[in-house]
């Protein structure tokens, strides 16, 4: 058994066992064990990757542990899997967030079994997406990841959940329709140099797809993925969706699922259609920069914690898109690091918001106040998360943002300069909305008598938070190994430009 397929098999097995679970206790134990096994596999994969990479340099084989099984011969569809440094990092992110999500849902009330099943099906899709190097397989895993979202929000959500779930699913489905057209466009051009039609990314990367086709299919593929990455103006599903979703789902969705967007853009749209990317980059840079500034400014005026975090995500993920479109290694490195960093941070935030909501039954910051006194642990973690979010050195956000800024600054023309400066200016606005929340919600006098005896954080909540804090601080303190691993994996990409 190859170590990559395990990432699909283990979650599937977990789901199968979950079906036999009788109550919450059994369900969560099974999910926890599954999550732990996945985390172990991800860490193991990291070490294996380093070992293997030392033997096989990137120039020889961009992907490691490649396995290829033919699946549907007529259309040359394969189940092809393999990883490079970027996917390894993403797999670690996913496994950590999934495990943290299980911890946070420790006391889920309604239909626990079904909840965990949906959650892990979603995770399966994400794992599969990150390991596949066959476009078709990738697309299928993408859909597997998106569909359970509808159930998770529609059944376990709160507020206008049907509306949000429907909006989210429809927008993402609309995007995947575009995406499918884009992928098929790539497929039918993959024999441009002679040879057979193929879905294999590594094979297509060797083909010179004609410029006209690239120009046509790049925006389709880009938007298809970017809707998931909350590209302005297609981000509106995200605030509503997150606000209605249950805690663990928000965590997984913002922390992992939205990363599929950036990753897909990078791996598919930009890697396979480089000329299209160069041709279209100016247009999407404008949209992405608007997203960065706009998300941050919109977050200033929100009062609902989840909305604040959702708009903050729009801003942070906008940075990922800006960085990807800057088309150089430093910025790309920043984009990947920012994806990881945002994944951990936003999952942390949603977890904290869930805990606060569970205790106080409100997410309106104007109604909260003085939580630092009554919930010291949760509040302290919130402040740390906030500091990470506003790019304080020592946390992951700083490392990522600096790479993005330095990378973006490599372009000398006025257009890119303006875009870069506008992006950098978002760090000031970010500080404003983070400190606003900290000031109103955590500091100050206690506004509600009932808040005086809120239950303290429980062990599973703590574990969930620690799990997310460790990588945030680890990345921020010692970024060298991670950033070098990613930089190394970027070599084949930059060779295309």
């Amino acid at each position: 058994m190859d170590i990559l397929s395990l990432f699909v098999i283990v979650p599937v097995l977990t789901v199968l066992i979950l079906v036999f679970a009788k109550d919450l206790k059994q369900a969560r134990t099974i999910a926890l064990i599954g999550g732990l096994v996945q985390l172990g596999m991800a860490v193991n994969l990291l070490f294996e990757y380093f070992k293997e990479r030392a033997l096989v340099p990137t120039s020889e084989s961009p992907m490691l542990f490649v396995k290829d099984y033919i699946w549907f011969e007529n259309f040359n569809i394969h189940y092809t899997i393999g990883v490079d440094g970027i996917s390894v990092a993403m797999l670690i992110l996913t496994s950590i967030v999934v495990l943290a999500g299980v911890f946070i849902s420790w006391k889920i009330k309604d239909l626990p079994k079904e909840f965990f099943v949906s959650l892990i099906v979603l995770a399966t899709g994400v794992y599969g997406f990150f390991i596949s190097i066959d476009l078709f397989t990738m697309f299928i895993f993408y859909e597997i990841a998106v569909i359970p979202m509808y159930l998770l929000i529609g059944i376990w959500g709160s507020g206008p959940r049907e509306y949000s779930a429907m909006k989210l699913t429809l927008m993402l489905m609309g995007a995947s329709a575009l995406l499918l057209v884009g992928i098929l466009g790539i497929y039918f051009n993959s024999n441009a140099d002679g040879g057979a039609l193929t879905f294999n990314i590594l094979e297509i990367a060797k083909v010179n797809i004609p410029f006209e086709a690239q120009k046509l299919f790049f925006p389709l593929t880009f938007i298809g993925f970017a809707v998931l990455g909350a590209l302005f103006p297609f981000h509106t599903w995200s605030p509503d969706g997150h606000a209605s979703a249950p805690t663990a789902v928000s965590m997984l969705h913002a922390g992992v699922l939205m990363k599929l967007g950036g990753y897909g853009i990078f791996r598919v749209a930009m890697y396979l259609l480089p000329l299209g990317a160069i041709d279209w980059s100016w247009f999407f840079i404008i949209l992405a920069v608007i997203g960065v500034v706009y998300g941050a400014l919109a977050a200033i005026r929100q009062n609902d914690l989840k909305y604040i975090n959702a708009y903050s995500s729009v801003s942070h993920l906008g940075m990922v898109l800006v960085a990807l479109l800057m088309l150089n290694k430093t910025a790309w490195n920043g984009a990947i690091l920012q994806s990881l960093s945002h994944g951990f941070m936003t999952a942390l935030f949603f977890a904290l918001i869930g805990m606060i909501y569970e205790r106080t039954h409100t997410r309106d910051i104007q109604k909260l106040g003085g939580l630092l006194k009554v919930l010291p642990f949760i509040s302290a973690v919130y402040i740390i998360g906030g500091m990470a979010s506003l790019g304080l050195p020592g946390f992951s956000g700083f490392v990522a943002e600096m790479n993005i800024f330095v990378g973006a600054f490599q372009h000398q023309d006025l257009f890119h300069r303006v875009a870069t400066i506008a992006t950098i200016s978002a760090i000031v606005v970010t500080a404003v909305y983070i400190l606003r929340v900290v000031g109103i919600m955590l500091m100050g006098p206690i506004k509600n008598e009932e808040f005086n005896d809120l239950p303290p954080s429980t062990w599973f909540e703590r574990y969930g938070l620690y799990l997310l804090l460790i990588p945030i601080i680890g990345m921020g303190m010692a970024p060298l190994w991670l950033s070098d691993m990613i930089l190394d994996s970027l070599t084949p990409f930059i060779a295309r430009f």
Partner: protein
Amino acid sequence: MDFTYTILIPLIPLAVFLILGLNALKIKENVAGIVGVLGLLASTILSFYTAFQYFFKVGKVDGVYQTFVEKTTWMNFTDTLAIDMGVLIDPISVMMLVVVSTISLMVHLYSRGYMHGDQGFTRFFAYLSLFSFSMYGLVLATNLFQIYIFWELVGVSSFLLIGYYYTKPSAIAASKKAFIVTRFADFGFLVGVIMIGFYTGTFDFVTLNDPIALQDTASPIMQNIGVTFMGFSVITTALVLIFVGGAGKSAMFPLHIWLPDAMEGPTPVSALIHAATMVVAGVYLVARLFPMFHFIEGGIALEVVAYVGGFSSLIAAVIALTQYDIKRILAFSTMSQIGYMMMALGISGYGGVEGLGFTASMFHLFTHAMFKALLFLGAGSVIHAVHSNVLQDMGGLRKYMPITNITFLIAALAIAGVPPFAGFFSKDEILAAAYESNQLLFWVEWIVAGLTAFYMFRLYFGIFWGKERVYKHAPHESPLSMTLPLMFLAVVSAIAGLVPFSQFVSPDLVGYTTHIHMDIAAMSVGIGVLGIAIAWIMYKKETTIADKITSAFGFFYKWTYNKFYIDELYLFITRQIIFKRIAQPFAWFDKNVVDGTMNLIGNTTVDISKKIKGAQSGKVQDYAFAFISGVVIVIMVFIYFMN
């Protein structure tokens, strides 16, 4: 000589921070105090040992101070550009180590008494350690990015400490303001750093400050000097932007608005961060890059520094005249003195005696740290005794607090520039340097010297002399843990001026001899004594002169009292323009236009489906009719075509 061990100087406070921070709720007050003080004591000993080794043993080779660098790669940007972490030992960093260690140790000792019995005692010491760690890291930074990293960290420690009393709305507002204003300045700093990195290919101080490369247009650092931005070289622009960062942290006009409010923090914090160490980081930053500032395009950036410094020192001194909160008076005084330092750097030359401005600035940084920390700690002692910050609540305290009285007086004399106290020597050098290179700034600073003497003694007489107030509890002298640091700093403030500073610190690292400039000294002492004398007349006994002058100035007084309405201007910009006119419409736009468009698409689909839904009546008969009609039509068509 290997200076690798200096890495321990920041790491020890970091360890203390982690120990105290992770167990903030469990560790008892006594233990926290002892751990904090011992940790810092270790760092202080190492700092002094380093200073001794550097200045007297190994630092000087052939009459030139050497720069020692130990570093390791922290993160790679590109193949050539990376962030390093390490320590850089040269005269100014060692001098700063001494300053930071001394003040921080004194503040730690003092806080044990001052914060005694406070609920968050352990948290307080954890924050102090975090600050010390960041400040040491900033001082020892080997490159621009490292300094930026620690720059942000001191910013956040400052935020945490200002907001230490986190249930007090004014403290929250102040901490937010401090963080956001400096963050805004750091935005400039960051862009400057990235520009430097891009156009010169390095962040490293040693490479950037190499005077030979800076004078050779073909060198890698200077290759892009021809690229211009708005008429100036991009390097000059970058330096100005870096100075914006420095100005934010050092509370230079117009980014000074956070400093007075920062006085909401506990007084030891004001002494440590907002008087002696963090706020001079901007001065240190400019000094760090002094060769660049000096050589790039003939020092245009340096002129900006000089004028901003000069103007800030004047405006702050004027505002300080009218304030009543004793900590705010000291805050404006700090701003004014930092303006002095900036101005001195700005007018300095590079080689030999030309570099007097640089030396004087560093010298003033050194002496100012001592006497300003003393002033703040003294003010803290007073506040501790009378439980108020406001000058009107004080008076005649000299009888109750003899030690505080004497030490405060020494500090006030030092800042007023009365010989033989420390401030006299450093201020004299600054004025002498200004006299040589820029007459306008010299006269401005000369007036500021008089204003300084006046408002300091207004403060001194107001607290310790004047009319005795009715106190709820009889004020009493603070405990030994608080007065001991006062006495130590008083001694230092009295004698620090005798250090032959120019031998140690000079821009070209060679060192030279200075002497007191008698004519300038006479002028500065003259105006200083005049200021003291006026204050003596107006405030030693309660008189009505002050009120008369106040009403005579009327309008101007009101403007000054309200700090020239700069805060209100900022408030107007942020509240009315950014929040109301930009952020609010953005939020509205998102909800209604962007989201509205998406909803419109959805709703249109729903509407269309509603319209055609009528065909699906749900009545089997209708379906059957349609079905049969269809069959009939199909058959007819079929038959028609068959024939």
